[in-house]
């Protein structure tokens, strides 16, 4: 075994342990903030696996998008709305947990079986390595143009939806004529609608 192979083997072991341990922690820990931070760790170790597969560009993109943007936004969301409240303990909560566990184990078994039984067509080509960036770019603008553009349209839709929701002009928090039940309210101060605030300031001036 050469030095490079040994390093790769050890790195693979560490990365797999980090990915699996982190992923289990995300699911099993009670504290949602820990889960969110561990999710960032899982994404980072997955980008390490991409580096081992000679896919440097994908690894950097994984860090940029999933660690730098997705995890940070999840954390942002948690920290803006998180208010520590004692949960009222539910009776027979273990039924739900056992059912969830059963479904997860079943899914895992199903996926393992299909992974092991599928005759994978493993490519014998040499990984493109450094030239991967060029290859990805060419694919984006030729045969994968439609999915690429559709994904960008999807993001645009999400962007516009978020702005509409945040401005609160078209969708009032509470429908007129019916009081919202307390259980459905977010633990934050009720805010006035943007439109009503602006109309008040108009009459003031």
């Amino acid at each position, binding site marked *: 075994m050469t030095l490079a192979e040994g390093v790769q083997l050890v790195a693979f072991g560490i990365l797999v342990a980090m990915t699996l341990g982190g992923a289990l922690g995300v699911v099993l820990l009670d504290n949602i903030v820990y889960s969110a*931070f561990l999710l960032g760790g899982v994404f980072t170790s997955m980008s390490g696996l991409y580096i081992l597969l000679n896919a440097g560009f994908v690894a950097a993109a994984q860090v940029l998008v999933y660690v730098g943007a997705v995890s940070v936004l999840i954390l942002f969301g948690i920290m803006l709305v998180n208010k520590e409240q004692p949960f009222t303990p539910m009776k027979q909560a273990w039924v739900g947990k056992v059912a969830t566990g059963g479904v997860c184990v079943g899914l895992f078994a199903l996926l393992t079986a299909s992974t092991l039984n599928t005759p994978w067509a493993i490519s014998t080509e040499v990984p493109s*390595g450094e030239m991967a960036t060029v290859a990805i770019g060419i694919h984006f603008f030729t045969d994968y143009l439609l999915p690429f553009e559709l994904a960008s349209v999807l993001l645009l839709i999400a962007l516009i939806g978020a702005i509409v929701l945040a401005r609160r002009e078209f969708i009032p928090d509470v429908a007129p004529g019916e009081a919202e039940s307390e259980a459905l309210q977010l633990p934050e101060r009720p805010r006035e609608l943007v439109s009503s605030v602006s109309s008040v300031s108009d009459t003031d001036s």
Partner: protein
Amino acid sequence: MTQGIDLQGSFVNALVDLGLPAGAAKALWLPLPMVVILIGATVSIFVTVWLERKISAAAQQRIGPEFAGPLGTLQAAADGIKLIFKEDITPAKADPILFTLGPAIVVIPVFLSYLIVPFGQNLVITDIGVGIFLWIALSSIAPIGLLMSGYSSNNKYSLLGGLRAAAQSISYEIPMALAVLAVVLMSNSLSTIDIVNQQSGYGILGWNIWRQPAGFLIFWIAALAECERLPFDLPEAEEELVAGYQTEYTGMKFGLFYVGSYVNLVLSALIVSILYLGGWESPISVSWLASLIGVSETTPWLQVITASLGIMMTLFKAYALVFIAVLLRWTMPRIRIDQLLDFGWKFLLPVSLVNLLLTAALKLAFPVAFGG
């Protein structure tokens, strides 16, 4: 890849001649450049802190540090020793694990980014294909550490500072990445070595700053915002947030934030000098001068001179930019958080998009000047 000195090759060859197997010689070489760069980055903190103190003193008509070493050059060492000996306090209701991890996550990506900073044709730890993109990706990790330390301190000012840091970092990453993209468009490569080589040959006239003036300004502003330097130091705005996410930190954990911010400043200055100021290229091209006096480029003494001149040029450019950053810090007022976000999203982002489109158009129109 034949020009310049191949330090790795000669080192490995020397060890193989001494009777070591080639693999062992390579393994002995591997840690050397990393250690050298780590030491260089650490020394750069001392220089930058000293510059910061002296320049701020000059801006305020004071003398500044004077007694610690000649001209106060050892002041940073005194600061560091003080931080090491301070008691390491974790607040009683803080989250001890996250509180300890936070500063480390802020510092590690900054040091990792030195992987791609070239000081010469072969004077770089790795010349990887994704180069500058790796730096953008790594710099996006820091806000996680800031959020972590802000949250775990269990202090509302810390949390606000952490959230502000994350918001600021996410907003200014986009114009910065677009500015880098315009440079990449001209050099046809993400590798930092290729980006510098594309600017070489014409001395100071070939540098990207003449072809990307808007990109240079956008990148510099965004880099200052990413480093949380005034006028963008809102995450630690003393008058509003005590000290932001670092309020509860003492001792070496605070020292890590301090180290991280100064190393990040030097790193950003290095990246600006690589992207826009020609990296290790001198204002007057050395190879042109050599051909003028009739010396071959492969002459050993010329290569040594070129390499050392390259390192000096890179550092000189970076420290000139650090000087500007320090001067900005002590002469500019801080902007408000809403102004900061407005400026990032409503001004820098559209301008950088236009810059990118203009660069693409110019590349199609004048492939000679804009790297066809």
